[in-house]
């Protein structure tokens, strides 16, 4: 794929245009990357596509090969893989807290102990998310400002 960069005057709006023969996964990945940089993700709900502001997402969960974005009241499906989103959203304060879940630390109200050495993140919405023990050390570092 040829890449062209064109410098424009300040009065003109900035834009990214992708010219492709087919909208492949690779193209979608580029689009997601750009949207994430702009603070948005694309989610699908009942066949309709929505642009969701990243700060509105409470957590992202992978369930049976599908990835879902959870906001306060809505759930959207996304075509992105969890590991891709983990990379893309790292600087937006999202952190992996279990094998299948990315948590937006800005949406967490408190952390409390659960049984069997695990922890529970209580979201501002009241919802509770289990934090796997494996990810606790990284979470501790993140909360002390060592990752973001």
């Amino acid at each position, binding site marked *: 794929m040829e890449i062209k960069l064109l410098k424009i005057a300040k009065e003109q709006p900035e834009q990214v245009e992708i010219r492709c023969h087919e909208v492949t996964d690779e193209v979608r990945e580029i689009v997601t990357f750009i949207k994430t940089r702009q603070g948005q993700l694309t989610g699908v709900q009942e066949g309709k596509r929505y642009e969701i502001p990243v700060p509105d997402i409470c957590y992202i969960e992978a369930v049976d090969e599908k990835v879902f974005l959870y906001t306060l009241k809505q759930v959207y499906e996304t075509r992105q893989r969890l590991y891709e989103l983990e990379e893309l959203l790292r600087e937006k304060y999202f952190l992996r807290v279990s094998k299948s879940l990315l948590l937006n*630390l800005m949406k967490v109200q408190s952390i409390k102990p*659960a049984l069997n050495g695990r922890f529970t993140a209580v979201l501002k919405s009241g919802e509770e998310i289990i934090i796997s023990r494996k990810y*606790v050390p990284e979470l501790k570092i993140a909360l002390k*400002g060592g990752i973001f």
Partner: protein
Amino acid sequence: MHGKEFVIDCVRSFFAVVTMITAAMFILGFLFAPEEQFGYEVFLFPLIYGTLGTLPNLVMYSKRILTIKEVIIRKVLQLLLIEAMIIVFIFGFSRGRAQEPEVIAGVAISVFVIYVLCTIIDWLQNYFTAKHMTEDLMKFQESVN
């Protein structure tokens, strides 16, 4: 839970159990047989009971995250296994006063108390860790906003 985490858990659990058993042996011995004299081999018993008490930890092993209900069921099963193993080990091969029901009941209650105490100590450790993490979370969110 990963294998490494599980082994670390077992080691922690072993030392906590050994400490509790030593205390329980003192209390039970003081109550039921204060006149009894022992040799150096008695130092081995907390280690043996500690090993027996740690083996049923295998019940808690799972590669996936267990639900709260599953954890509770497995914990009950773990306790029953510990009770069975310790009681069979202590009373299965002994005769005389050791076979008396109140002695068996005393040991069974001690095992239960030790199990509950270990669970509480573990929970308290996590409680303070969670408290510190929540404090760090508040500071982190403030610094971002």
